[in-house]
C-alpha cells in the first residue's frame, strides 16, 4: 500500500513538474503553448547530451533547463510576441506548428532512437521505507518536485518580481501604466515556463527515457491537469496533479483496462460542472 501511495505521488509530481510551466505561461501571458511538450523534451535531450559527454547529472539538471529557458526566450521574441495581440487561434496554430518542427529537429540531431539519461550512481538502489523498498531515484524526483514548487511559490509570493507577475496576470494594463515593461514580463514568464519544462525533462530522462515524441505524449496529460485545476491556477494545478496521478495509478492497479477512461471521464465531468477548475480559480478571457 505504501508503495502504491508513493507511486501515486511520483506520477503526480512528474505531471506537476511538466504542467506547471504551461500553467504559469497561460496564467500570466494568456498563451496556450502547444510547444510546451517539445520544450520539455528539449530539456531532456540537452540533459542527455550533457550527461553523455561526461557532465555531472546534477550540473546537467541545472544547465539543461537554463538552455531550454534560453531557447524559450528566443522563441517568445521571434514567434509569440509578434502575434500576442491577435486572436488566441493564431498562437494555438503557431505553437502547434512549432512543436512539430522541434520534434522533427530532434530526429535530425539526436535520431529516432530511445535513449536514457544515466542516473547518478548515488541515486541507484532502493531505500527501505516502513518495510517497503522504494527506488532512491523516485524519492529524489519527489523531493526535487517539492523543492521546485516551494521555490516557485516563494518567487511568486515573496519577491517583487513575483508581485509584478501576479499583478500582470490580473490587471496587465495597470502594471504597464505603472511603468513596468510588459514585453519583458512576458518574455521572462515564457522563459521561466520553459526552464520548468526543462527541469521536468531532465528529471524524467532516467526514468521514462528520451525520444522525439516524449513531449507530445506528455502534453495531453498536462492539459488534463490544467483543465481540472483551472487554466492559470497554480494551487489548482497542484491539486489536479495529485488527483490525476492518483486516479491513473490506482486505475492501473485496480481497473487496468479503464485507467485512462477514468481520468478523461473525470476531466469531462469537471469541465461540465466546474469549468473554472476544482478551486474555481481558472482564468478565461
Amino acid at each position, binding site marked *: 500500500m505504501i508503495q*502504491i501511495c508513493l*507511486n501515486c505521488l511520483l*506520477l503526480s509530481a512528474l505531471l506537476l513538474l511538466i504542467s506547471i510551466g504551461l500553467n504559469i505561461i497561460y496564467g500570466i501571458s494568456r498563451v496556450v503553448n502547444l510547444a510546451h511538450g517539445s520544450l520539455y523534451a528539449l530539456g531532456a535531450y540537452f540533459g542527455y547530451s550533457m550527461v553523455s559527454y561526461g557532465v555531472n547529472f546534477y550540473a546537467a539538471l541545472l544547465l539543461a533547463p537554463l538552455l531550454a529557458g534560453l531557447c524559450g526566450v528566443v522563441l517568445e521574441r521571434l514567434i509569440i510576441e509578434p502575434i500576442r495581440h491577435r486572436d488566441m487561434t493564431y498562437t494555438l496554430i503557431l505553437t502547434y506548428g512549432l512543436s512539430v518542427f522541434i520534434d522533427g529537429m530532434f530526429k535530425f540531431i539526436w535520431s529516432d532512437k530511445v535513449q536514457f539519461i544515466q542516473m547518478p550512481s548515488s541515486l541507484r538502489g532502493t531505500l527501505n521505507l516502513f518495510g517497503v*523498498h522504494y*527506488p532512491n531515484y523516485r524519492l529524489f524526483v519527489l523531493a526535487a518536485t517539492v523543492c521546485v514548487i516551494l521555490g516557485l511559490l516563494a518567487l511568486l509570493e515573496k519577491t517583487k518580481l513575483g508581485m509584478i507577475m501576479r499583478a500582470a496576470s490580473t490587471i496587465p494594463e495597470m502594471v504597464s501604466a505603472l511603468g513596468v515593461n510588459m514585453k519583458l514580463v512576458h518574455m521572462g514568464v515564457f522563459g521561466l515556463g520553459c526552464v520548468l519544462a526543462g527541469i521536468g525533462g531532465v528529471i524524467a530522462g532516467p526514468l521514462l527515457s528520451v525520444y522525439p515524441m516524449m513531449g507530445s505524449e506528455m502534453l495531453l496529460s498536462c492539459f488534463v491537469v490544467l483543465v481540472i485545476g483551472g487554466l492559470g491556477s497554480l494551487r489548482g494545478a497542484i491539486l489536479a496533479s495529485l488527483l490525476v496521478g492518483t486516479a491513473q495509478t490506482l486505475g*492501473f492497479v485496480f481497473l487496468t483496462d479503464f*485507467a485512462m477512461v477514468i481520468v478523461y471521464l473525470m476531466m469531462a465531468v469537471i469541465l461540465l460542472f466546474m469549468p473554472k477548475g476544482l478551486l474555481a480559480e481558472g482564468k478565461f478571457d
Partner: protein
Amino acid sequence: MRKGLAVCISVLLVLTMMPLRPAVAADPIKIGVVVTLTGMAAQLGIDNRNGILLAAKHKGTILGRPIQIITEDDEGQSETGIRKAEKLVFKDKVVALSGVTVANVGQAIAGEADRLNVPFLTTNVMTPKFYGLHPLVFRCGQVADDQMTVAQVMGILKDPDLMKRSWYVLADDYAWGHSCAEEFIKLATEKGIKIKNPTYDNAALNLVDWSPFVSKIISAEVGGVYACLRSPVAPRFVQQAADFGLMEKVKIIGGTPSEAALEAAGESVVGLIGTCCWTWDIDTPKSKAFAEAYWKEFKEVPPSQGAQAYTGAFVLFNAIEKAGGTDPKKIAEALKGATFEGPYGEVRISPKDNCMRTPVKVVVAERAPKNPFGAKIIKKVVASLTPEEVGPAE
C-alpha cells in the same frame, strides 16, 4: 577527295546508328522497401532497411543487372504505407516490395496485393495472419508471433528453474500484444506452466510510468513476468522494474528488443530473456561475416532485425534470379520453397503458407565481453531450437 568524304560520311552514319548509350549498364532491377523511419518503431525500420541495403551490396547484380533499392518511410501508418507502396509500384516500377516494420502497415499492403500485382515479402511483420494470406505475399527474415511464443515456452520448459516459477502476463494494449499474451497463456497452460493472471494485464500504449504494474507484480509474488511489449518500450519497463529491485527476484521474458534499445537501457536490462533468429553471439563463419560487414558498413552494433532483413532480401533476390525475369507470378513461384543459408543457418519458405521456417535462439541479455562493436550488452544464446521444434507443422 570524294572517296575520303564518302568514308567520313559512312563513319558518321555508322556512329549515328549505334546505340546512344553503349557504355551504360543494363537497367537496374528495382526493389521497393517500405519501412517505418518515424516514431517509436523507427529503430526497427532503420535496422531493416540497413539489412536490405547490405544484402543488395553483397548480391551485387541480379541476372546481370544492378540492384536499385528505393526506400520509403511509412511512418507506422497503414494509409501512408499503401500510398508509398503505390508510388513504388506504379511510379518507380519496382518489381517487388520488401521490408515493412509494423503489422498494421504489412496487413494494409498485403490487402492491396491484387492491385499492386508484385511479390511482397515482409522481413519483419510477425502476425500469424500472414500464413497463406495471398499467393503474392510472403514472410522471410522475422519469425511469426506463434513461432516466437513456441520458442519462449520451450525456453521455459528447457530450464528447470524457469519451469518451477509462476508467471505474470503483461501486454501492450493493442492487437499484437493481445495476440502474443493469449498465445502464450494458451500454450503455457497446456504445457503445465503456472500462469498467475490468465486474463493478463493490458498496458496503455502511451504509458510512461510502469510503477503501478511493478507494484502489482511484486504483490502477486510471482517468479516470472511475460511481457509482450513493443521493442522500444520493453527496455523502459525493464529499467523501471530494475529500479525497484525486481530483476533480482523475478525473470522477465520479453519480445526481442533491438540491440539499440538494449544499449540505450544499459545494465538494467541484464537478465532479460527473449527470442530472436540471430544475435552476434552466434559463432559461425556466416554469422561472423555478417556482423563484421554490418559493422563496417553502418558502424552500429549488428542488430537482429538487420540480419533478418538481410536474410529475407537475399531470398527475394535469389528468387528473382531463379525466375529468370521480373514476371510477378514466376518470382512468387520461385519464392515458394526457397531456401537460403544465411547468418542464422538455413531458412526456408514453406510452399504451404508462404512463410518462413527457421531456427530460433532463446537469448538472455548479459554484459557483453570485449567486442569490436563497442557493445555493452549481448544477447547470449542459452538455447537453440530447430525449425521443426518451432513450427508450425506443414
